């Protein structure tokens, strides 16, 4: 019994020591990244400031890259003065084109002495939006140059909606909080269904859908488009289109409810 108590005491002391060690090292809580708050009227300088936050936060760029380090043996290229270097990297490619290319297709041009391995930052797990990437470009332009990019600038790349977040991720766009009209246009429902007029487009008009169908039926018509087909319209088109857009994977319950409520409100007047 005495030896058992001594062993128990020894166990407690050793575990307390290791807990102490664990509590002695720097303590940091890492939260999931938050999307940047960007608006269309931001100037390039403002965008560069927002870009700096993205680089250090959601973009996780500084996990690998340094800015202005003179250490030898870096694992990834230093970003100091990148605005100047970018224009000289690839013949015939402007600095802006090079920066955009490096972010969207990072493993095509590898700087001498370094290994490929940077993920495409418009895809998970980083999953920056096109606007956030423009902010990053503005920040990179500010490193040794003057930012010129705004959210209206065409950088030559547009991320397909389905590439932003894969189905179950609940990533950047999932649960983005779109309202009914927002869901209707974001998922391109308006390209096939008219809502302001009874004239049909590719699919039947939804001008008075709220008076014809209950919310339950609207819900099922969205989630199961081929279950009941409107007369004169082919099956399979809507399901294929929504699948291609990743609608079923990305739409949140709140957005779906907003869409159903919005459509139920369409009473034809």
């Amino acid at each position: 019994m005495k030896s058992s108590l001594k062993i128990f005491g020894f166990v407690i002391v050793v575990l307390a020591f290791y807990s102490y060690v664990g509590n002695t090292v720097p303590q940091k809580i890492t939260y999931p990244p938050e999307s940047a708050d960007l608006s269309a009227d931001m100037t390039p300088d403002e965008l560069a400031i927002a870009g700096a936050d993205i680089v250090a936060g959601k973009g996780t760029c500084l996990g690998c890259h340094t800015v202005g380090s003179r250490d030898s043996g870096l694992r990834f290229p230093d970003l100091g003065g990148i605005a100047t270097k970018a224009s000289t990297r690839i013949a015939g490619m402007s600095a802006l084109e090079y920066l955009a290319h490096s972010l969207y297709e990072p493993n095509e041009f590898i700087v001498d002495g370094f290994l490929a391995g940077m993920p495409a930052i418009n895809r998970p797990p980083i999953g920056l939006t096109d606007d956030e990437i423009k902010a990053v470009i503005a920040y990179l332009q500010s490193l040794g140059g003057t930012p010129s990019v705004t959210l209206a600038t065409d950088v030559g790349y547009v991320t397909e909606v389905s590439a932003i977040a894969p189905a179950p991720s609940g990533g950047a766009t999932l649960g983005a909080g779109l309202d009914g009209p927002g869901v209707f246009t974001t998922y391109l429902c308006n390209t096939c269904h008219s809502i302001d007029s009874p004239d049909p487009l590719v699919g039947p008009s939804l001008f008075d859908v709220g008076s014809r169908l209950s919310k339950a039926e609207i819900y099922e018509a969205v989630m199961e488009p081929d279950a009941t087909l409107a007369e004169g319209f082919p099956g399979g088109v809507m399901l294929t289109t929504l699948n291609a857009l990743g609608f079923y994977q990305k739409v949140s319950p709140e957005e779906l409810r907003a869409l159903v409520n919005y459509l139920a409100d369409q009473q034809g007047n």
Partner: protein
Amino acid sequence: MPETRLRKLFNPWKSSSVNERPWEPTELRPRNRHPFRLCYLPICAAILLAVAIVGILALPAGASPQEALQDAANPDYRPFPIVGSRVAMWVVAQLHLMFAAFVLAVPMFALIIEIIGYVTKDKRYDDLAYEFTKLLSVSFSFTATLGAMLTFMLFILYPRVATYMVSIFSWTFFPYVFLFFLEALFLYSYYYGWGKFSPKVHLALGVCLNIVGTAIMFIADAWLTFMNTPNGISETGALVSLPDAINNFIWMPINIHRLIANMAFGGSIAAAYGAYKFLGAKTEEEKAHYDWMGYIGNFIAISALLPLPFAGYYLGKEIYAYSQSLGITLMGGTFSWLFIIQAILIGNLFLAANYYLWVSMERIEGAERFRRFIKYLLASVTITFIVWATPHSLVATVEEARQMGGAHHPMLGVLGVMSAKNTAVNVMILTTYISFLLYRRGNKEAIVPWAKTGNRVQFAIFAVTILFVIFLGVYGYFVEARVRIALSVPQVLAVLTAMISVTAIDIFMFKNAKKTGEIKWGQMPDRAQYALFFIALTFAWTMGLMGYVRAGMRQHWHVFGVLQDTSPDAFTPTLGFASNVISVTVLIFFLFISIVFWLSGLSGKKPWEPKAVDAVRSAESVGTERAVEAPE
């Protein structure tokens, strides 16, 4: 309206008649918020396991991945009282892993020891193997109970994750269940059949037990490694190829790493059992037996520990190959300080292992001649420990940082990089190996004519290897990253080659060697037994820490890049918090394992007999009853 798979989705507007305008809920999918209750915990491992397995198979096995993804689109978690879902899952998963590691490891070295006993005809080995196996029976029940509890908790607390994982791996559950039954069959026939079968049949049972156990681990490894390096799925997360999902980037590295680590962990727990029995021993024979048992357990643990860092390199390499950002999060980002804690743990393991060997040499007649080397070995282990535990960036005040010219110390900062750390760990491994070598030679003297040459060759191998390892470490500072990363491979190969070649020479050199004295088993100070406890505790803590970082490096992803954690626990906690959870988990594990030790010890106790006084009272009582009965 025809029923189709999409109708399975909950339609909030749906009532008995679609024409009615039903009540509109505030949430599309109402969430079950009933708290999980501890009082529902199972009491029978077998029933629990069966129910858990049936539960897995019955729930979403028939659902297609697409349907599972539809269901998974709605974040769905349930709370756990007081500690929260994450900590509850964390503790139970870690306890299950610890018991599983023990249950898979013990049959491996029990079989090896039994084979040694069979070949050498030395009954001591057979007895020792049986004593190790005695620990298995209760441990197996603990493992199954904790596994069932883990499964239940996953489905209750993290249904979205469970649903998605089942949508990918449902077909692997059938062989898993089948193998688990086989495991039980072989384990109990191996244990209860000891001495009941011919030795060859019994050894064959042991081989089958190990094969089945390893296969079970490989299947379970597929599930957990997929969460870190998902493979075989489409961009939307749907299953494309099950073989590819199983054979993901880190599946085989984890399999190898776990096989070795399980041996090290199991050996250390068995050694702790020997130490526990040694401290409670009442006779010299018992002390001698349990001293020997502790030594064998520790030998197994340290032998497995030596190649473990190499398996770790392979695992790390594959993580980087899958995703540079995942690798950098692990080694250079959020968790970089975790590896300083790991360095302290591993350094302690090596220090304690060497200390145990040096103390053990005191019970060997003739080993005194090697004592003079111990101070050099201690210096080597200490210096390499310090180098390994040196952080790259120091925590400093602003003033200190100014004086240093940054977060890196002008001198110590140089030691905080992988070139220095890889070099240090390789030298530490070689030093521990030299301690083993000296222990092995303790009471032996080589009598072969080439003994002097053999010693010189061995010395030269050590010298050249250490110089080569240090040279590559220094060279790493002057070359670019892609060259430097590759230098760890020749370092590892050089150390492995040295250990294998020196062992080969030693075996031939000390064949039929002259004995200079006896090993006095049992004549060990108590502090050596505490060293064994320390090693077991440190192994368990290291296992907890590495389990944490393996899951933690995904950060806010359940399945990295595929299934995002949207629960309130999506943040990565501090290392201090993680350390406290690990300490509590290890404490619970040791409380459980002490029950295993106690139950295992019961089989050796004498059958219960009434005490003499009780017997007299009992006889008197019977006599009185008869006397009362007599008048009638």
